[in-house]
């Protein structure tokens, strides 16, 4: 299998170079998704099936969808406004400086990393070994799958903050989106529905795929406690289902209602409640009561799945899009080359 690894590693590098070198953005994104699939394979080779699943669903899947959608929006936008004629001329000296800077950065980073890795080879295994520690404690964690134990019990604090990170992203997402809808509710909806006039085949395919995806998601979630899977992967599947549903003209999570907000925050909310409640009995924050670990972890994971799915989906749906009607052109402020100096923060 050594050759396979060699080929896979080189494949990763080549795909990455392909992404960097392609002039066309669409091509770059496609190559990037390819890179993600290769990476998922790599995780399998590294005996990390959870990561393979996550990479395929999130790294390649959701990221790819978001990127492609963005390119679509750009294309649409370019048709709306005439592309700038000559302002795109690259600033030669700046580009040159960036190249030199990149060269220096690359060489020093490469040198440092090479030196470090080379020295690692000569060194004995480290003093600490968390593998054994995890093994010794997994029985008390309430789950039998190591990664889930780490994510939702040993280092559940990381996970709490991580979901908060997702939440921040979507808060900014709706923050930037909503202004458009409040100012022009009707036109915006029109713009979105124009996006989705799918062929009949797609619609029926979506209807077929949707339940399948949801069932898979639930399975992946439930599997998490004993084998690869868990809230994040399941959440990504839910999001994927949602994206499909959007394409199939099923209108979900389009408006930012209180129910949607509840869905977005549900995961963290339940997580926090479960985490805080032991403090009432004098136990530290984030401790599970003895005997209840498995149940509570499953509860949290279930809620997290819903929230993560909704967040990822909303990040797709609520991302800014151009409004189709003509007035758009007027809404775009005239910006000159010195727009940068005009910090219009709070005039």
């Amino acid at each position: 299998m050594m050759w396979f690894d060699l080929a896979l590693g080189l494949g990763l590098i080549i795909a990455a170079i392909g992404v960097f070198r392609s002039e066309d953005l669409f091509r770059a994104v496609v190559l990037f998704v390819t890179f993600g699939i290769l990476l998922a394979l790599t995780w399998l080779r590294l005996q990390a099936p959870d990561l393979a699943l996550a990479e395929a669903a999130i790294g390649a899947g959701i990221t790819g969808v978001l990127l492609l959608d963005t390119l679509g929006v750009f294309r649409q936008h370019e048709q709306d406004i005439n592309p700038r004629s000559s302002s795109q001329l690259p600033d030669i000296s700046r580009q040159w400086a960036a190249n030199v800077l990149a060269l220096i950065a690359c060489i020093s980073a490469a040198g440092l990393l090479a030196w470090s890795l080379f020295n690692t080879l000569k060194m004995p295994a480290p003093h600490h070994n968390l593998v054994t520690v995890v093994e010794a404690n997994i029985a008390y964690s309430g789950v039998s799958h190591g990664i889930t134990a780490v994510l939702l019990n040993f280092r559940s604090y990381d996970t709490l903050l991580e979901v908060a990170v997702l939440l921040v992203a979507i808060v900014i997402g709706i923050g930037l989106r909503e202004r458009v809808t409040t100012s022009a509710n009707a036109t915006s909806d029109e713009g979105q529905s124009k996006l989705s006039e799918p062929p009949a085949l797609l619609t029926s395919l979506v209807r077929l795929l949707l339940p399948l995806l949801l069932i898979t998601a639930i399975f992946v979630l439930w599997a998490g406690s004993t084998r690869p899977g868990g809230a994040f992967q399941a959440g990504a599947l839910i999001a994927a289902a949602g994206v499909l549903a959007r394409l199939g003209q099923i209108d979900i999570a389009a408006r930012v209602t209180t129910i949607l907000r509840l869905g977005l925050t549900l995961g963290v909310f339940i997580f926090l409640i479960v985490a805080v409640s032991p403090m009432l009995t004098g136990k530290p924050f984030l401790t599970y009561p003895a005997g209840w670990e498995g149940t509570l972890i499953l509860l949290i994971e279930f809620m997290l799945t819903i929230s993560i799915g909704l967040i990822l989906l909303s990040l797709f749906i609520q991302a800014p899009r151009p409004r189709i009607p003509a007035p758009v052109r007027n809404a775009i402020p005239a910006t000159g080359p010195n727009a940068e100096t005009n910090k219009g923060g709070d005039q």
Partner: protein
Amino acid sequence: MIPLLLIIPLVFALLSVLLPRLPIKAIAIPGLVLQLIASIQLSVHTYKHGASDYALGSWEAPLGIALHANGFTVTLLTLTAFIAIVCAVYALIYLKRYEHEQRYFWPLFWFLLASLNGIWLSGDLFNLYVGLELLTFSAVGMVALTANKASLQAAIRYLFAALLGSLGYLAGVALLYGQYGTLSIQEIALISTSDAPTQVALALMTVGLLMKTAIFPLHYWLPPAHGGALAPVSALLSALVVKASFYILAVLWLQLAPDAISPAAAQVLGALGAGAILWGSWCAFRQPDIKMLVAYSTVAQLGYLMFVFPLSIGTSAAAAELAWQGTVLHLLAHAFAKAAMFLSVGTLVLAIGHQGIKDLAGVSHRVPLALFSFGLSAVSLMGLPPSGGFNAKWLLLQSALSSGQWWWFIFILGGGLLTAAYVFRVFSVSFIEEARHKFAPTHWLLDVSALTLAAAAILLGFVSQWPLTLMELVPGVQS
């Protein structure tokens, strides 16, 4: 007690996401008071009983994540709570004219506080990474709030710089985990050596954190982000957010693996700091826009923080202690002063309706309190007595002398004069009689909050002993 400082902001963050239209904004103030009380109580506890650890989820490090409260962290926690409360009061008034923005300001504000508290307390390398990302995202979101082209561009630039910095940091974490098999800072500090992977890891993390701290020449993202944001946002960003990555840097260099650091590397960081002072001041001097002037002033002032490394690594214990004390004081004084400055400038801009320095003509008569706050904070920034900034500079100068590094002397002393050069541009315009614009009346609470922070910067000059006494409780720092 310790996790309360995480729970309070998270709960309020969730509430403000859930109920953006309810008067959750007004509830924010009691919440902040609660947070301030909690942090003061923790400070008192630390003062009486020394540093304490808290095993989250009852899992001890290295398996679990430990929170660690020592003299330095409780100082920072209290600072955060205090500045947050004043900025919140300011924001409550200031954001009234930003109907849409304020619905998203408050959740981001609370997430920002949660991440700051998390970073001050965390004793785990990877957890710090997640905390940094949470911090970055909320900060970027706040910069982008107004959603005009300039602020979006600034936010994107900020986000990319911060992401690059985080990856540098994370790469270092990866190497350190490979090397030591644990992520706990205390555990690594016990066994750290000066081998290649450790040094490379530190180098990568350092570059990443310098990027996030906006240390010259990696500061390019800071001025548009801090200068273009809404006034309370700028205040929070300059006073607290950039300090978080500096805090991690200081922990890495002085606590995690002091053996792996060579004095030469420390000199390099010092040189960057000196460059920051010169370049930042020069740019501030040339800005036509007052908010950009203050933003560039942040670039310059952050340079002083870098002097802790050459002054405390490879020098005598006495010099190191002085450097450490001076740096902590500078951090505090700059936080107060810069927040006050951004808030007072916000009020001035609000009153005039323009943000060019030339437009400030006549403000000394018509917006005197805001200008007075600006003046008080400028005193501290210039390092003139009596102020926290002066005491900080004094300690740094003494440290430079007693470690025989006279060359830092020039920059520490000269930096104050350069600061005066750009700050007095504002004053000299403000004394001109004829106003260029009509003045709009401003709410008195805006003035009071700016004045509170400015007064704190000055008062710090008289009570410097307090934070410094707490500082002696930090293990791993020579005292």
